[in-house]
């Protein structure tokens, strides 16, 4: 077992628990409650042991605890190879380790674990607050590590100061490594954090979904354009296409999702690009949704790894967006191209699908259009005109009955985008025009001189697309027919009275706060652009910018020069901090004398007064005594009497004299220098 000096003192324990707490704190929210309680209890127990009120648990208790926790983990987590069980396991190991925190080795183990737990935090969140908190964690854990050595280091200020100083010194090298070290892709597939509830637009649409979204001002997308910027009325960010309607709920329907056999052209495959160049190039940074769909304008192509295009003209990510994700898109909006592709039978059936029964009035109304032989565009115009005549746009639509379309079209006539899109598509289909509901975001807010467009959750929108032979899918936004300002100026002005009414403080009304929020978003955006999404491409660009060209020689110089500078600085520091304060000339002369005496075989003991030393020399080497007397006297006068003449005299005496020259007896007195005890 550990010997006495290796036992952990109180400060060490407290530091360890502080480090564990700091590392675990952000995980508390998602860890099962029993783990949090177990950890707290283990800490309590260990402190009780320290106070001598309790013993450390014995073997049987420990085995029992291990068994219980394993059972608890098995019950709490179905899937073992995921991130949460891993974090839970780490938290458990903290807990168990606390029950046998005895020696310094245990302390180190616990603190190394704390570093790891602090890092797992970033797998969940990479935002600035989390990054700052993670930094705090690292500082605390490092301080705890420092506090394990000695009672001076364990003082809170000293430990934290030491930790901060060491980490600050490490930062330059870290930056260098961050810029230079190559990023390898994932070495193997890793379990992702996929327990979080999905946010944003879901894969189905029922009345009320969008009302929920309209209450959230969380950022959803940030879009930066490279080249032309689409006008506001073109800013439709398509995310999902709903083809299947069951009378109440719109959903994607079978055969769209790649997991259900839907066709996706993954990036990298050979594909025919349109002959005309893309109209818009942009980069979308999407917040985590835990869903695979991405958002882009119509006809997108993306070269970003892991992104593919679906048959219904959307972008899809291979794996759900668990973290903020950036992708580059090129879009060819429809009006610039003609599409002479024909719909297949399957697609016809798909986009004309309607539930068997229900909504008789709407069907009858649509039948009229069909019977009158109008073209698709004319039918659409009629329906939109009808909307425009007597419908109102509201965030608080009244409840609808079983025949929801009938109720809306001929009853309440008050609704939100989803009502308009849904009833429009239903009517068009009933009139024999292939149509679909498209969900995504519309609009956005410019941040900082149009650097990027910030799209928030409340910009979620649903609209429609209809198939026109020879022209392909055309976007129709029934909401625009009712409330054009919704499209032009966004939700805020379209439903000014109702917008964000439920939130406690109507922050969006206060312009200063709104500005601050945009500023904050700006900082977030920059953070994401420069740090979080720093990949091998950006690395290459940055190195090119810094070095001109990336050649091995230049790269080596880029690394070697700062390293050499740092080494020189460290050596200089070592040398400077080792030098004592410069002594007054008299003392320096006296030290010179002492060095000579030491060479002659009699060294001045540390702390020995000059007078005592002289007396000792007189006893041990009588031959030297007269000269040593004179030198000592001169030194004392020079040092304490502030006598400049004495200093000169001392210098002269030393210049002429060497103890060896008139040392005749050999080193007989040598043995006298070791005291042989009391």
């Amino acid at each position, binding site marked *: 077992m550990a010997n006495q000096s290796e036992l952990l003192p109180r400060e060490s324990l407290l530091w360890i628990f502080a480090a564990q707490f700091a590392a675990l704190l952000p995980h508390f929210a998602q860890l099962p409650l029993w783990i949090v309680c177990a950890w707290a209890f283990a800490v309590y127990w260990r402190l009780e042991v320290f106070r001598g009120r309790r013993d450390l648990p014995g073997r049987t208790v420990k085995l029992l605890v291990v068994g219980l926790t394993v059972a608890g983990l098995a019950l709490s987590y179905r899937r073992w190879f995921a991130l949460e069980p891993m974090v839970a396991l780490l938290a458990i190991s903290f807990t168990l380790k606390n029950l046998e925190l005895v020696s310094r080795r245990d302390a180190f183990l616990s603190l190394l674990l704390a570093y790891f737990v602090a890092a797992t935090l970033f797998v969940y969140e990479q935002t600035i607050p989390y990054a700052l908190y993670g930094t705090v964690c690292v500082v605390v854990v490092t301080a705890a590590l420092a506090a394990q050595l000695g009672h001076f280091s364990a003082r809170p200020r000293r430990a934290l100061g030491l930790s901060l100083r060491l*980490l600050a010194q490490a930062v330059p090298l*870290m930056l260098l490594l961050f810029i230079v070290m190559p990023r390898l892709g994932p070495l193997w597939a890793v379990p992702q954090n996929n327990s979080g509830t999905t946010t944003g637009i879901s894969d189905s649409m029922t009345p009320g979904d969008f009302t929920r979204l309209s209450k959230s001002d969380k950022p959803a997308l940030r879009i930066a354009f490279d080249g032309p910027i689409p006008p506001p009325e073109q800013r439709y960010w398509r995310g999902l296409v709903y083809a299947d309607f069951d009378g109440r709920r719109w959903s994607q329907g079978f055969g769209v999702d790649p997991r259900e056999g839907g066709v996706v052209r993954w990036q990298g495959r050979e594909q025919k690009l349109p002959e005309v160049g893309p109209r818009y190039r942009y980069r979308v940074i999407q917040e985590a949704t835990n869903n695979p769909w991405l958002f882009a304008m119509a006809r997108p192509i993306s070269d970003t790894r892991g992104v593919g295009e679906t048959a219904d003209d959307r972008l899809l990510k291979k794996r759900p967006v668990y973290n903020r994700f950036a992708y580059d898109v090129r879009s060819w909006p429809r009006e610039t191209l003609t599409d002479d592709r024909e719909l297949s039978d399957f697609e016809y059936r798909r986009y004309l699908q309607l539930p068997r029964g229900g909504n008789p009035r709407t069907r009858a109304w649509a039948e009229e259009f069909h019977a009158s032989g109008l073209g698709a565009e004319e039918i659409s115009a009629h329906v939109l005109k009808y909307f425009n005549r007597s419908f109102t746009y509201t965030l608080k639509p009244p409840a609808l009955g079983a025949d929801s379309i009938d109720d809306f079209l001929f009853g309440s006539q008050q609704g939100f985008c989803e009502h308009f899109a849904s009833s429009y598509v239903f009517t068009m289909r009933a009139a024999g025009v292939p149509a679909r509901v498209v969900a995504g975001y519309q609009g956005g807010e410019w941040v900082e001189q149009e650097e990027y467009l910030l799209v928030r959750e409340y910009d979620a929108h649903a609209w429609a697309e209809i198939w026109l032979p020879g022209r392909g899918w055309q976007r129709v936004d029934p909401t625009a027919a009712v409330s054009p300002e919704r499209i032009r100026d966004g939700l805020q002005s379209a439903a000014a009275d109702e917008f964000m009414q439920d939130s406690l403080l109507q922050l969006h009304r206060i312009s200063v706060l709104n500005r601050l929020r945009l500023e904050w978003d700006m900082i977030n955006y920059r953070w994401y652009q420069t740090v979080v999404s720093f990949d091998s491409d950006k690395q290459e660009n940055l190195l090119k910018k810094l070095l001109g060209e990336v050649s091995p020689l230049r790269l080596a110089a880029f690394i070697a020069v700062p390293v050499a500078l740092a080494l020189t600085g460290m050596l200089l520091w070592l040398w400077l901090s080792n030098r004592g304060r410069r002594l007054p000339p008299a003392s320096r002369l006296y030290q010179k004398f002492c060095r000579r005496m030491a060479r002659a075989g009699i060294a001045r003991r540390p702390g020995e007064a000059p007078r005592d030393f002289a007396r000792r020399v007189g006893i041990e080497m009588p031959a030297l005594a007269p000269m040593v007397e004179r030198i000592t006297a001169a030194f004392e006068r020079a040092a304490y009497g502030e006598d400049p003449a004495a200093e000169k005299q001392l210098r002269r005496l030393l210049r002429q004299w060497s103890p060896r020259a008139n040392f005749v007896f050999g080193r007989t007195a040598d043995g006298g220098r070791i005291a*042989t005890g009391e």
Partner: protein
Amino acid sequence: MSFPSDIARPIADRWRELMQRWLSRRSPPSRSVTLDHSKLFILPSRAGMGFLLVVALLWLLGTNYENNLVIALTFLLVSLFAVLPVHTFANLSGLRLQLLAARPAFAGDYAEADIDVSRSGSRVREWIRVGWPAEEGAYLDLYERSSAEIRVALPVVARGKVRAPRLRIESRFPLGLFRCWSWVDLDIEFLVFPQPLSAGPLPIGATLSDSESDDLSVAPQALRGGDDFAGLKPYQPGDSLRHLAWKQYAGGRDLYNKNYESHADTRLWLDWELLGGRDVETRLSNLCHWALQAERQQIAYGLRIPGSKLAPAQGADHLQRVLTALALFPVKGGVGGQSK
């Protein structure tokens, strides 16, 4: 440290020997040693290796999740690890160790050396351990002071002059992830007295041998008669003493019984010859014990061992002389002959 296998042993010994030779070239014995780069060694400690393992795992985590913050944290820890040896090294570099005194000790006990550790510059030093390995050694800080006097202990087994092995000075400051150490030879030589072994009460009243006739003038005073004699009995073991059963013994007894019965001023000889039949080291140990006992009881005592003789006296200096004579008694040569 040690190799378990017997075959490996000679190799380990050779290796150690080579190391020692190399070390003594690099840092020759001296009473005062200033630590510098030529004398200091530095390597990651076991905790440091653990730290590197965690860093490697973090790098895997960051790479697999393509998570730049985890990667940045990994690099921060790597850089921290790169900065640390400078601090650990700086914690020892420039320290001056000076031997103040090597205290004598009894065999089987700890011999202690007083060492002065001082720094010249303004840089503070922490958590420095000085000692002979296997022993815990002494910890010291030069935090609020610029020099410290420490006492380190070395277990000594055999009497005589014992040259201390190289002293290890070690530090793991600041985070315990690196271990910087040095082996310094402060030219420490301990005087080790024999281990005191009880030989019963003091041999008060024991007579001198014939051969020491020149001491007879002093002898009568040193003897004490009376009751004390009975106490001596068990310590006249067997033949050899009987062999020395001198004529004066019986005669003297009568003589002094009357005169010196209650007299405290008796003089005592701790005589090699009184302890016949035991081996050399036991005799020395017994004499040592007697000397300490006599000193404690404040009885003047003299020492007679082959090759040296110290007149009865008392006091710390005398004890020192007696013990030194015992300590430096030659291990071999003429001892066997003397006891016969």
